[in-house]
């Protein structure tokens, strides 16, 4: 097979499995590749740009929000290109079909997929470019290409002495054609994968030079704040514009679809003027619920509707009839906010019939739809400039903050930066849904013979499809957007990917039990929701692994052994379980006043077992140590794997100990870090991360650390106090 640049591009972006929703659009390639004589730059593919001056630029198609894609993906391409990753200049990708995440047909960063989906295409891109440079050098020297080697940005002559810089070869390399498949380096020759320990963005981040969304500065920029309905769904009818407009620095104030915008010369002036605002809201149809009502509604729904069968094996009813003991439990989880350290913000500028948006977004192509919706522009008129993200955790997959900045900028026609306060960020975000789980287990002759799990709550696609469906068809006229959203939902599981946000981690129940039933009772109380670090796994992990602990206890067996026995056909589960138990000293007695609990949970393809050692001090839960074994396949950057898993553990502990967003008559009670607490340094336990050495395809690490720590802590507290923890946050 002969492969040229363009074919290669198709192969690498098209080898993406069956989940692509977007149809292939003829002529949709929007990134020009090839050699540009004037600039002296060669683009062998959509990711790389090599110049005559030996600058190497890598276009990062995923965003960097702390998860390490900036370093990890650069390492992949650097390895095969054979250059030091630190030499590569990284730039964030513009919106283009070539940069979509192949798993979703959207240009989004989430679901711990960045490394897994880039593992092959980026290495192939680096290898192809390198191969073309080698072919060019071989032609210059009139030697066999296979006798040439490369070394840190140079092609080396077979004589081992002469060499040519990549920059000297770019123009010639462009004319080369690769015949046959491009060979990837064997693991034994890797210089950077598995070894690269430094973080390529660390220097920018410790000197204050990294540009986050909130740092964008444009000439003559003004600042906007948005006053939103205190209850979701309320619509601004009128406000005291005359009182506000005369305040110092205020330029304008007006009603938008999202609320009342106040625009001033400085952020502080806009914020102060906001205090004087009195808005008359139309609350017809606005959210009017409380968290207690939501959960009560879930309980009713659970009893009225057994839900959609998501997994059925054998007969759980028969198992229950024949059981010696039937154990039942109900678990509750609250709404959770993301609390990224960088509050929501975006900067937009409408000029010359075009809109430019600078934003810390996890989904630039959805951001483009969001901006187009709030102007008379089409998505093609909107340019999204992605910045560093001060945390994402799923919150920035929803583009409401871009809608707001775009709506204001469209009206004002000057650059506008719109910043949310922390209080607004806590009260007006999209949340991890509250969920209810009903569990039933059948025990007979010391065996678990039946496993029933009913998940009760909403699913995220209902809220997400609004901008996601049009983003997949950016050429569709805007009047079709709502239709696209509805079609997307109707076709869910057929033409569009099935929404597994409510059931993930429950349908994949790994233990060998003869009778299994997993059902989802779909009920949506109207509270805005979105993806939250580890999504459905975050609540299913707690339900599944707490109930496993309950069943182990009921059958009088050690929780590790109880699980181990049911994992004969799951060697990777077993291995992390056994390693974590061994490392944590499972079976040995814990220090006085402490107890251990464990949980085992696979999410996003990654296997994680954790043992938590906890106690209660002065009436508060104290976590001393978390021991974690993780199998995420081939490791690209050991330090980032460790950081993501450890960071996920602290993220999960924050939820387990404090996490709770509560509604009172439609309004959120929490507001800032004093009542929506984050784990602090002095509360952080010792975390030991043990990584399984593996040659398997790499899987994600950004989220899998989160789910197991919550049940593991609850299980430790049960071991300590005998009181079962069935509701989050946990109580001492």
């Amino acid at each position, binding site marked *: 097979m002969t492969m040229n640049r363009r074919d290669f591009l198709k192969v690498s972006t098209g080898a993406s499995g069956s989940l692509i929703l977007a149809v292939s659009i003829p002529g949709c390639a929007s990134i020009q590749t090839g050699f540009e004589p004037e600039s002296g730059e060669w683009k062998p593919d959509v990711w790389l740009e090599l110049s005559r001056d030996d600058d190497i630029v890598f276009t990062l198609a995923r965003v960097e929000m*702390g998860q*390490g894609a900036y370093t990890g993906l650069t390492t992949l391409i650097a390895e095969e290109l054979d250059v030091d990753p630190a030499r590569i200049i990284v730039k964030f990708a513009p919106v283009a079909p070539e940069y979509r995440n192949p798993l979703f047909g959207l240009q989004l960063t989430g679901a711990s997929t960045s490394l897994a989906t880039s593992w092959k295409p980026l290495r192939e891109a680096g290898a192809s470019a390198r191969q073309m440079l080698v072919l060019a050098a071989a032609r210059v020297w009139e030697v066999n290409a296979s006798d040439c080697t490369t070394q840190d940005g140079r092609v080396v002559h077979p004589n081992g002495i002469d060499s040519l810089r990549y920059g000297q070869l770019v123009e010639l390399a462009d004319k080369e054609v690769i015949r046959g498949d491009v060979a990837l380096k064997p693991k034994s020759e890797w210089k950077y994968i598995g070894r690269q*320990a*430094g*973080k390529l*963005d*660390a*220097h*920018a*981040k*410790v*000197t*204050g*030079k*990294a540009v*986050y969304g909130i740092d964008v*500065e444009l000439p003559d920029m003004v600042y906007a704040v948005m006053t939103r309905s205190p209850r979701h769904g309320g619509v601004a009818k009128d406000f005291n514009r005359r009182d506000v407009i005369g305040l*110092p*620095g205020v330029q304008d104030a007006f009603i938008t679809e999202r609320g009342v915008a106040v625009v001033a010369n*400085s*952020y*502080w*002036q806009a914020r*102060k003027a906001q205090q004087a605002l009195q808005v008359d809201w139309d609350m017809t149809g606005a959210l009017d619920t409380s968290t207690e009502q939501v959960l009560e509604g879930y309980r009713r729904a659970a009893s009225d509707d057994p839900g959609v069968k998501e997994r059925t094996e054998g007969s759980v009813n028969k198992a229950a009839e024949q059981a010696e003991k039937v154990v039942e439990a109900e678990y509750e989880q609250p709404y959770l906010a993301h*609390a*990224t*350290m*960088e*509050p929501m913000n975006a900067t937009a500028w409408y000029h010359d019939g075009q809109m430019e948006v600078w934003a810390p977004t996890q989904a630039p192509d959805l951001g483009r739809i969001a901006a187009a919706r709030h102007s008379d522009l089409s998505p093609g008129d909107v340019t999204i400039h992605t910045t*560093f*993200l*001060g*945390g*994402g*955790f799923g919150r920035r997959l929803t583009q409401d903050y871009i809608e707001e900045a775009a709506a204001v900028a469209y009206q004002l026609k000057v650059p506008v930066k719109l*910043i949310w306060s*922390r*209080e607004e960020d806590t009260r007006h975000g999209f949340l991890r849904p509250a969920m209810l789980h009903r569990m039933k287990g059948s025990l007979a002759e010391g065996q678990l013979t039946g496993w029933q799990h009913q998940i009760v709550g909403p699913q995220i696609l209902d809220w997400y499809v609004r901008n996601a469906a049009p983003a997949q068809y950016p050429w569709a006229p805007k009047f079709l957007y709502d239709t696209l959203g509805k079609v997307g939902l109707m076709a869910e599981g057929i033409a569009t990917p099935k929404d597994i946000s409510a059931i993930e981690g429950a349908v994949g129940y790994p233990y060998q039990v003869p009778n299994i039933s997993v059902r989802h009772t779909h009920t949506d109380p109207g509270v805005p929701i979105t993806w939250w670090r580890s999504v459905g796994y975050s609540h299913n992990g707690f339900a599944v692994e707490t109930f496993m602990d309950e069943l182990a206890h009921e059958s009088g067996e050690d929780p590790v052994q109880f699980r181990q026995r049911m994992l004969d056909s799951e060697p990777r589960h077993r291995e992390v379980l056994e390693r974590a138990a061994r490392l944590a000293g499972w079976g040995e007695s814990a*220090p006085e006043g402490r107890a251990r609990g464990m949980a085992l949970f696979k999410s996003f393809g990654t296997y994680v077992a954790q043992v938590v050692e906890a106690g209660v001090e002065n009436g508060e839960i104290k976590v*001393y*140590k978390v021991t974690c074994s993780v199998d995420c396949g081939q490791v690209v950057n050991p*330090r*980032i794997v460790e*950081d993501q898993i*450890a*960071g*996920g*553990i*602290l*993220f999960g502990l924050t939820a387990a100990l404090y996490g709770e967003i509560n509604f009172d008559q439609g309004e959120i009670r929490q507001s*800032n*870090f*004093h009542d929506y607490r*984050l784990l*602090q*340094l*002095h509360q*952080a*336990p*010792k975390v030991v991360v043990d990584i399984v050495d593996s040659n398997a395809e790499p899987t994600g690490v950004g989220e899998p650390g989160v789910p197991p720590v919550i049940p593991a802590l609850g299980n430790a507290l049960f071991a300590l106090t005998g009181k079962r923890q069935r509701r989050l946050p946990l109580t001492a």
Partner: protein
Amino acid sequence: MAFSLTVNGHRHTVDVDPDTPLLWVVRDEIGLKGTKFGCGAGLCGACTVHVNGQPARSCSTPIELVDGADITTIEGLETEGRLHPLQQAWIDEGVPQCGYCQSGQIMTAAHLLANNASPSRDEIVTAMTGNLCRCGTYARIVAAVEAVAGGVGQYEPAPEDA
């Protein structure tokens, strides 16, 4: 109203409302974006700068209270193009994840070390615990401070037998 400040050794005069927080003066009037807005209430520490050598939450410090003061921000830690030892330790240890809180973390640590060259583990924990990090970089923060303080660089917050 006009106020004057010395920021990282450079004198600036700004004309802003007297209650304007120092944070927004530093960021938007003087143009130094390294200092971050996190909570606006002094709860997270992302906005930490030094005012006359003392760490301060610039989001809750009105400019009128610091008229004439000497301010140091993250951009002022480098001397003659050389990184502050803490910044270098932060890179070596690979502390930052999203990085947003790290300016405030480093400014808090810089004050600690300026006043106590060899802080104990407890002193580091006490000094740093007011700075929140949502990514969970705490263990590496302690290790980086200890690396500069001449410590062992391996963070074990709760002794096993405590």
